[in-house]
């Protein structure tokens, strides 16, 4: 049995079609057609990934996203018709990991889903990485500061691990898009900006003066120096 995916979309035909595509790829699919029932469906099916339409009747996709993020770091991919709307940024800020603009290819959809479900790959030999004053336990998927666990989503964990695995490397947004999101071509750098902010709000003591994920002006980001 493959990973379980919850499709939240009010368009029954699209949901069914997505279901057909995902089913053919070996995923287990469950459905929810509105925002009100989405959280209950999430709790009931406990999926490994959520495909969430941004424009839902009743409770919107952004609110659903916030609700789910309140209890889980499960990967969320938004489906949206408008790539340039403020809704996309709002969705990312609410915790969605990635988004897809309609109309999308089935292969693209499957690739995005697989990237999000894949465990992070790091060439590090050790099981533990250090960045700033936080410790990343690659094996246990845990990030701790002075023994206290920090609650990161898998995406945030991947992002932090990617930066920490090459502490001397300055990462451009494009490099991070490729390594963490799996985009091989130029994609939306807002993804990186929003998620670095979300990551900082969790790992930094003072997010306004970041030391764990440092900004390299004009280029991108790098891991902060290790401190004891």
């Amino acid at each position: 049995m493959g990973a379980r995916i919850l499709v939240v979309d009010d368009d029954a035909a699209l949901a069914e079609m997505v279901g057909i595509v995902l089913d053919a790829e070996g995923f287990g699919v469950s459905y929810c057609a509105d925002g009100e029932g989405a959280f209950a469906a999430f709790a009931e099916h406990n999926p490994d990934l959520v495909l969430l339409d941004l424009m839902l009747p009743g409770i919107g996709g952004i609110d659903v996203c916030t609700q789910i993020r309140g209890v889980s770091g499960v990967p969320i991919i938004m489906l949206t018709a408008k790539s340039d709307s403020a809704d996309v940024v709002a969705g990312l800020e609410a915790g969605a990991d990635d988004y897809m603009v309609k109309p999308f290819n089935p292969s693209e959809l499957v690739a995005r889903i697989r990237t999000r479900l894949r465990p992070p790959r790091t060439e590090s030999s050790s099981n533990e990485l250090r960045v700033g004053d936080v410790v990343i336990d690659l094996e246990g998927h845990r990030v701790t500061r002075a023994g206290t666990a920090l609650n990161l989503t898998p995406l945030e964990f991947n992002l932090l691990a990617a930066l920490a695995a090459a502490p001397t490397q300055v990462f451009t947004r494009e490099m991070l898009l490729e390594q963490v999101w799996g985009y091989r071509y130029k994609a939306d750098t807002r993804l990186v900006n929003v998620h670095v902010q979300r990551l900082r709000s969790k790992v930094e003591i003072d997010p306004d003066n970041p030391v764990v994920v440092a900004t390299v002006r004009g280029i991108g980001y790098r891991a902060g120096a290790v401190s004891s």
Partner: protein
Amino acid sequence: MQRLARELHRWWMRVLGLWRRSLQLRTVIVSLALSTVAILLVGIYMSVSISNDLFNTRLNQVLAESQRATSTAQRIFDSSVVTDRAGVQSVMNAARQGIRDSSSSSLIAVYRAPSANQNAGLAPQDFSSPELSGVISSDLRTSVQNSADQQFWQSVNLPLTTGDVPGVVVGSRLTIPSVGQYELYMGYDFAQAQQTLRFIYGVLFASGLGLLILIGAIAWFVARMVVTPIRIAADTSEKIAAGNLDVRLPEQGQDVVATLARSFNHMAESMQAQLTALGTLSVMQQRFVSDVSHELRTPLTTIKLAADVMYNQREEFDPTTRRTAELLNAQVTRFEKMLGDLLEISRYDAGSVDLELQPTNFASLVQDVAGAMTTLAEQHGCDLSVSAPGGHFEALIDARRVRRILMNLIGNAIEHGERKPIDIVVDSNATAVAVTVRDYGVGMATHDLELVFSRFWRADPARQRTLGGTGLGLAISQEDARVHAGQLDVWAAPGEGACFRLTLPRDPKVAIGHSPLELPETDSSAGETR
């Protein structure tokens, strides 16, 4: 000398400019000029009449005096009976005294008339006041000699001790019994009249000048009263033209200016209302296009997924169904592209386009796009060649949009290039980078060049679109160029091919001087549109 002339010229130009620009100045100057003429005419008329009147009055007075003096002298002569020369002389002296007493003038001359010298032995000598010698003309003397009992006069300049003064000399005849005819001349100066006249001239001049100054001030004031509202109206229209639709003219009073202000404001109001309505309509339409495009996306996604699933399984279908699946898949892709282009155009129409400028190596970008399209070109039998004498630096452009323009231009060249080579040239200068895409295919007629950037326009409706263009490509490319503050030009000639030139500023904030690349030239006038 030359500098002075130049200085003068500049000064003159400035005055001329001021004259052309300032209605107020012009009004004042014209009023002043016309008033000067009027005052001058009135002044001349007044001074002429006054001086005539003064002269005539004095002349009549002088003639009357002279008449009286002559009669007095004649009476003295008539009542005397003298026989010897001394007696005649004493009578003559008495007569002179009588003349002086009865006349205000002491300028007297007495000449013996040449025609009557019956008794030369008794005749007294000629006598003349020194001031009169030399001023009595021979014409006057002839008149006096030829006519008895008549007065003659002549205007003269009397050389008095105080200087020359205007005056008249009045001449008449005296008859001295038993001696003969004498001419009597009396000089009268007009100094008093002259002084009065001079005073009147002074007053006239001063009042004329004062009047002119007053008229100038009045004209300035009146012109200001009229010009100021006009100027305010002009300023206000300028503001409205610049887009500030909220400005209005002040409405005061009931006069023509107030009427102008009211109708102007009325016009502005209705214009603003119409523009707002139009703007709302336009926004609604744009939103409608955008909404339609977005609403179509969800069903299109389903169709696309379905078509793709079928396409991937086409090998299992019978040939007809297989072909159907292929067609469906291809046309769904085309439909999607069209929808994307439509959305892009609607974004441009709504003005909601943001450039993502980043330093990009222009020549590399062109080479990159050309490389990506080589396979397509080979499929159509075209040979793509790129030469880049310039453009090897980082220009501040939106790479995604420029890439889209290039793909569009090269795609068009491949489609219309008729399997002939396609030349791509990149160059740059101080302000701009440019690329030309030249094909040697069917080309276009000159009158088609203006339509080439129109939406959904086809050079030849009968021609099939082999590359599945949407008809919006060049329209979007032009918008893409424009949003960069660049330009997209085209040259084409039937049978000779077409050449598209994209010119972009190195930095969108710095204007393009001229394009680094030239479009080809034809013998007939090269059609060039922007």
